[in-house]
């Protein structure tokens, strides 16, 4: 029972990390209609800037703002220099352009920072455990990551539904002219949204630094899963991204946790172990395919 609870917690934690990545992507995708394959690169840039700052200053608490700032700045620059020229174009030009950006960023990081994975340690304040239930300790850092994920979700929800800027963002997606008639500089708004998406990717990058490997190509490892999340949730919907992240994060974790065990009650040991491994690799794709077959526009389709 305790194991089930622990695995649920693990699933929740993975879900919230996925949400950080998915929120930025779905904002940019849904509101500006831009397919940004280089979203994973922004995550990598956040992690690298964070690791660099941590190495220079010796503290995680300066790594965090460094990672956020780097990702947001690169994101804003990307929007101003490249993405802006592609709004009027088909999605496919954006796919091509951002594919080029992935190559460039990977090459650039390998050239400038070297190919070695970087060191990034857990901040000492968060390196301990919290006993959530008697006999069930859980890493404090992972709990903190969950807290950040929840805070971001609430913050985004508040911003989108309760603030003027959120209203503009919502309107900007399909009523461009109306927003412009209100005297709002939509170009600036889009730069801002893009930078916000990048900032969230950077946040995810810094946060995973102490538990994953900070290395070239780390962005592509999460890119596809992030796309899966926003598609399952319904593109453009923050609520959808949250639901999608929960579904995918849970299925992935619980699949890895329990599928091999369930198979073992039917099959012989090694066969079950191998098959279980294979099944848990495809489980998120299976879930996505099923969701889309039943609901072709995701769980929370955005109207229009």
């Amino acid at each position, binding site marked *: 029972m305790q194991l089930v609870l622990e695995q649920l917690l693990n699933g929740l934690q993975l879900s919230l990390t996925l949400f950080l990545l998915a929120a930025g992507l779905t904002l940019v995708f849904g509101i500006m209609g831009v397919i940004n394959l280089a979203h994973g690169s922004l995550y990598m840039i956040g992690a690298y800037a964070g690791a660099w700052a941590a190495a220079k200053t010796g503290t995680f608490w300066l790594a965090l703002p460094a990672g956020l700032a780097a990702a947001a700045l690169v994101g804003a620059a990307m929007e101003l220099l490249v993405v802006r020229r592609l709004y009027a174009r088909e999605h496919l030009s954006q796919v091509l352009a951002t594919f080029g950006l992935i190559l460039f960023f990977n090459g650039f990081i390998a050239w400038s920072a070297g190919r070695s994975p970087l060191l990034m340690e857990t901040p000492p304040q968060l390196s301990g455990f919290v006993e959530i239930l008697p006999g069930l300790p859980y890493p404090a850092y992972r709990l903190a990551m969950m807290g950040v994920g929840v805070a971001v979700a609430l913050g985004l929800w508040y911003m989108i539904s309760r603030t003027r800027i959120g209203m503009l963002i919502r309107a900007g997606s399909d009523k461009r002219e109306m927003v412009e008639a209100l005297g709002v500089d939509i170009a600036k708004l889009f730069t801002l949204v893009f930078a916000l998406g990048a900032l969230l990717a950077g946040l995810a990058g810094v946060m995973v630094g102490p538990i994953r490997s900070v290395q*070239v190509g*780390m962005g592509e490892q999460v890119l596809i899963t992030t796309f899966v999340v926003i598609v399952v949730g319904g593109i453009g919907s923050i609520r959808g991204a949250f639901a999608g992240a929960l579904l995918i994060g849970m299925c992935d974790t619980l699949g890895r946790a329990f599928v091999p065990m369930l198979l073992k009650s039917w099959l012989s040991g090694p066969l079950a172990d191998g098959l279980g491994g294979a099944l848990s690799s495809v489980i998120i794709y299976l879930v996505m395919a099923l969701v889309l077959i039943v609901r072709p526009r995701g769980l929370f389709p955005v109207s229009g």
Partner: protein
Amino acid sequence: MRLKSIALAGAALLSFTAAASAQQPIKIGIVTTLSTPGGYLGEDARDGILLAISEEGGKLGGVPVQTLVEDDKLKPGDAKQIVDKWIENDKVKLFTGIIFSNVAVAVVPSILESGGIFVSPNAGPSNFSGKACNKNYYVASWQNDNLHESAGALAKKLGYKKMVLLAPNYQAGKDAITGFRRMYGGEVIEEIYTGLDQTDFSAEMARIRAAKPDAVFQFHPGGQGIAFLKQWQQAGLKDQIPMVVASPSLEQRIAAAAGDAAIGIAATAHWNTDFKNAENEAFVKGFRAKYNREPTVYASQGYDTAKLIGAALKASGGKLEDDAFRAGMMKADVKLTRGPFKFNTNQHPIQDWYEIKAVKGSDGKVVLETGAKVLEQHGDAYAKDCKI
């Protein structure tokens, strides 16, 4: 008529190149992985090879050499294309550099069919170590299973009775578990297969905690290994359950990137920075000076590969076609950074394996420290099937 004249011209050209080859440098094609997360492995192997060449002033074994280097992008098809290009355009006969087994499996046959020679600085897949061994195929690093056999032997030596084994769900991962089991002999409570690009292992760690093993063996090279060690420490398992790994899951760069999370982990390797022999001391010093970073086991393998090629070139006087090259290679009359070494009948290494432990160095950084010998002059299980 026309055909005949082309043939004649071709023959003339051939005899010309043969005459000129005494002065011409020997071309060495280094196809290796420089991009993708696995890029640092290839970078180190390449730099090890280049260091050995530059120390001799552009020569190996007294014979001038010229290197061609290209990134295989960890794609077997691309590696094949590069090799084809060098065979056709540059008439390269001597190849090295490949890091990953799946690239080697795809590319080595075409090198051998072209009459070329391949000396592996890393990958040693079982495909070519048994029945399908070849007199022009040498492995200077290890037969893949050796890595995990030595870890298994260490686990046995440390007296672990019940273990959980983890590896990624691909061929090399499955081979790792087979190799480990061969020498371990104890009870395996569970085998856990992880995903190809998996970066979060919390679910697996909860399973391990519940299984309560004496110790854990895991095989996750590169970035996956770093993530695994960090999360292992964070889950608080590091102080509860001992871990045994093979060298790809705990080398110098993994230790540097994992930091404290690596401390206390037991690994096995055939080489380490602190090996006390003159060749190794010179190599480590030279590598640090030239590249301004710590050498890894991949760098030492690249360096040793170059040294072995040097020994063979010296024996044959720079001729690759000669049997003298092969004789020189097999004799391996050269001191390597890893110490005693000889080629088995299947042209894979027979060498010593040591216990390696990550400890905190005097400057607070993690260093790898060599312990006792785990396996002495160890060959591989496939040599008996090889008839050369």
